[in-house]
C-alpha cells in the first residue's frame, strides 16, 4: 500500500516536472511541420469530411487559418476527429495542438479543465424548431409540449431550466441518435425539437417540406463556440487568437481573398499594418510579417468562411445573426491590429 502511494506521488511529481519544462507549442509545431487540430468529424458545416474525404467546415477552416498563420500554407494541417468525451483529454495529452470542435466556452472548462479559449468563431444558442401548423409564435406558448431532445447534453438541462424558470410543463422525448431524433420529430412524435440553432437549421433543411417548419426566435442559452488551447502557453494562445481575429479584422477592413492582392497597395495605414506592408505585427507574434495576408489569400475572411460553410447557399442556410460584424449588429469585433 505504501509503495503504491510512493508510486502515485512519483508519477505526479514527474507529470508536474514535465509540465514545467515543456517547450512552447509554437516551437513544437514549427519543428514537426504541421498543426494538429481536433475537429468534430460528424457535424455538417463545422467539421466533416466530404465525399472525397476532404475536410470541410467552419471549424476546419479555422484550423487551416491557424496553419496558414504559422507556415504560410493552409495544407500544413492534420485534422483529428474526436468525440465529445475525448476532445479535452486529447488537448491535455498533447495529441492535438488546438481544439476547434464546436466547444462551448464555459467558466468551468476555462478553469478546472485547464483550457484556454480564444476568440469565438461561432456564436450559437439553443432554440426550438416547430411545425408551422402548431400555431405557436413564442416559446412561452409551449406549455405542456412534448419536446424531442438528445440525452445527456447540456441541451436537455437548458430546456429543463427554461421550462422551470417560466413555470411551464414539458414532456421530454429523449432519443439517443440525431438521425432518429429527426425522424421522430418529422413523424410527429413530439410537438417541437430543441437543440443548438445551427443544428436545428440543418434539421429543417432535411425536412420533407422545409417550409412547414420554423425556428422560434427565442434563444434559451448562450453557446459561444471557440477554439481552445492548453492553459499556460500564452504565446501559442496569442497565435491562435489572432489567426481567428485576422479573419474578422479582414472583413471589417473590406479585405477578402479576391481583392487581397490589390489591397497590398492600399494607402490606408490600418490595411498596411494588417497585411504586413508596414511590419511589426508578425514579429510580435513570432510569425511571418505577412501571416494575415496568407490567411486571407488562402482561407478567406470570416464572412467568406461563414458563407462557404454554413451560409445561405449551403444546406444549413444560416443567417449571420449574432455572427455578423459589430457594425451590422452582430458580435464579431476585432481589436486593432497594431
Amino acid at each position, binding site marked *: 500500500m505504501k509503495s503504491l502511494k510512493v508510486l502515485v506521488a512519483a508519477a505526479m511529481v514527474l507529470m508536474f516536472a514535465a509540465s514545467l519544462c515543456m517547450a512552447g507549442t509554437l516551437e513544437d509545431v514549427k519543428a514537426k511541420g504541421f498543426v494538429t487540430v481536433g475537429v468534430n468529424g460528424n457535424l455538417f458545416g463545422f467539421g*466533416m469530411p466530404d*465525399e472525397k474525404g476532404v475536410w470541410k467546415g467552419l471549424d476546419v477552416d479555422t484550423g487551416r487559418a491557424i496553419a496558414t498563420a504559422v507556415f504560410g500554407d493552409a495544407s500544413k494541417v492534420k485534422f*483529428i*476527429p*474526436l468525440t465529445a468525451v*475525448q476532445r479535452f483529454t486529447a488537448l491535455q495529452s*498533447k*495529441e492535438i495542438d488546438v481544439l476547434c470542435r464546436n466547444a462551448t466556452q464555459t467558466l468551468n472548462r476555462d478553469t478546472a479543465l485547464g483550457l484556454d479559449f480564444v476568440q469565438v468563431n461561432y456564436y450559437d444558442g439553443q432554440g426550438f424548431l416547430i411545425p408551422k401548423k402548431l400555431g405557436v409564435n413564442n416559446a412561452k406558448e409551449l406549455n405542456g409540449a412534448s419536446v424531442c431532445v438528445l440525452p445527456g447534453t447540456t441541451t436537455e438541462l437548458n430546456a429543463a431550466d427554461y421550462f422551470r424558470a417560466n413555470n411551464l410543463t414539458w414532456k421530454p422525448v429523449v432519443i439517443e441518435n440525431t438521425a432518429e431524433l429527426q425522424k421522430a420529430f418529422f413523424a410527429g412524435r413530439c410537438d417541437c425539437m430543441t437543440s443548438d440553432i445551427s443544428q436545428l437549421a440543418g434539421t429543417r433543411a432535411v425536412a420533407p417540406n422545409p417550409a412547414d417548419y420554423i425556428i422560434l426566435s427565442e434563444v434559451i442559452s448562450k453557446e459561444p463556440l471557440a477554439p481552445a488551447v492548453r492553459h499556460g502557453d500564452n504565446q501559442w494562445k496569442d497565435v491562435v487568437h489572432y489567426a481567428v481575429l485576422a479573419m474578422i479584422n479582414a472583413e471589417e477592413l473590406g479585405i477578402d481573398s479576391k481583392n487581397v492582392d490589390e489591397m497590398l497597395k492600399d494607402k490606408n495605414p490600418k490595411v498596411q499594418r494588417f497585411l504586413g506592408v508596414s511590419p511589426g505585427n508578425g514579429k510580435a507574434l513570432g510569425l511571418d510579417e505577412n501571416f494575415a495576408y496568407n490567411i486571407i489569400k488562402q482561407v478567406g475572411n470570416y464572412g467568406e468562411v461563414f458563407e462557404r460553410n454554413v451560409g445561405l447557399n449551403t444546406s444549413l442556410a444560416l443567417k449571420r445573426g449574432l455572427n455578423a460584424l459589430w457594425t451590422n449588429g452582430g458580435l464579431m469585433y476585432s481589436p486593432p491590429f497594431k
Partner: protein
Amino acid sequence: MSEVLSNNNNSIHDDADNVKPPIASVGIIGWIRHNLFNGPINSIITLAILYILWKVVPPFVNWAFIESMWTSSGAECQQADGACWSVIYANFRFIIFGFFPHDQQWRPLVAMILLVTLLLCSQNRNNWKKSLAYAWIIGLVIMGLLMKGGVLGLPPIESSQWSGLPLTMLLSVFGMVAAYPLGIVLALGRRSTMPAIKSLCVIYIELIRGVPLISLLFMSSVMFPLFLPEGLTINKILRAQIAIILFTAAYVAEVVRGGLQAIPKGQYEAAEAIGLNYYMKMRLIILPQALKVVIPPTVGVLISAFKDTSLVVIIALYDLLKTTQSTISNPKWMGFSAEAYIFIALIYFVCCYAMSSYSRRLERELDK
C-alpha cells in the same frame, strides 16, 4: 400351374411397380403436405408465416428495387418513395476508403485484394507449406508499403488517414491472428502447475473478461495517453489494435481451456509415458486434439471479435461503420440511414459467413 402362378406373381409385381402413389403424397404437393401442413398447429404456423411474408416481402421489394433510386442526387431522393441507393453510389469511395487520398485509393484496394487472396490460399490445408509462410511475409511487407508509402515514388500516407474497409480489415485480421496464439498461451498458463504463472493468467483473463470492450477502448484512447511521458504519443490505431487483441485473447483463452479440459487424462499420461517433455506433449498430442474440439466456439469468438471492431467508432476511428455514419450525417444524405446500414450489413455478413462456412469445412476435413 406353377408357370401360371409365377406369371400371376409377376403381373402383381408389375402392377405394384407401375401404380404411382397418390398425387397428394409425392412431388411438390406431397412435400408441402408432409412438411408444412402435417397437423393443425403446423398448418396455422405455415399460414401465419405466409401471411407475414406476403405483408413484408412485396413492400420491401417495391421499396428496395422497383421504386428505388440508384444514381440520383440527394435532393431527387427526397422526392422518391423507394430506397435511395444513391447514397451508396455517391459516397462509395468515402465509405470504403475514408480519408485515403482520392488519387491514391488504388493502394488500399490492391492491399485488400492481396490480403483476401492470401487468406483464400491459406484456406486449403494442402497449401500449408513453407512457401505459404514466405508468401505471407512478402505479402505483408507489400501491404505495409502500399498503405504507408514513402518508397518507390509512392507518396507517404499517415496512418491517421487509414480508414474505411481497409481499417476494419486491418483491425480484425491482425486482431484475430495475434489474439489466437496469445489466447492459447494464456490457456496453457492457466492450466499450469506453476502458481505464479497460473495466478497471473487467471488475473489477466478474469480482469479483461470482467470489462466490456468499450471501456478498454476508452482507456486506450482517453486514459492511456495521460500516463505517457511528455511528447510521446502512441498511434491511435495501434492503441485500439492492442486493446482488441488483449480483449479477444482472454476469450480465446477460455475457449481453448475448455478444449484442454475435454482431452481425457489418459492422453496426458500416455504422452508422458513415452517420454515427451512438456512442449512436445502439448504440441504433438494435446493441442492438436484440443484445438480441433473447440473449432466451433473459437470461430464464434473470432466472428464476434470481427464485429466488435466496429466499436472503435466511439473513439472516433473511421472504420467502415464510422465512414458510413459520417456520410449520412451530411444534410444532403440525411434520412437514408437504412440504405447505408443495409449496405454495410451486407459487407459484414459476407465476411462472417465466409468465416463460419470455412470453419465448418475445416471441421469436416479434420473429422475424416
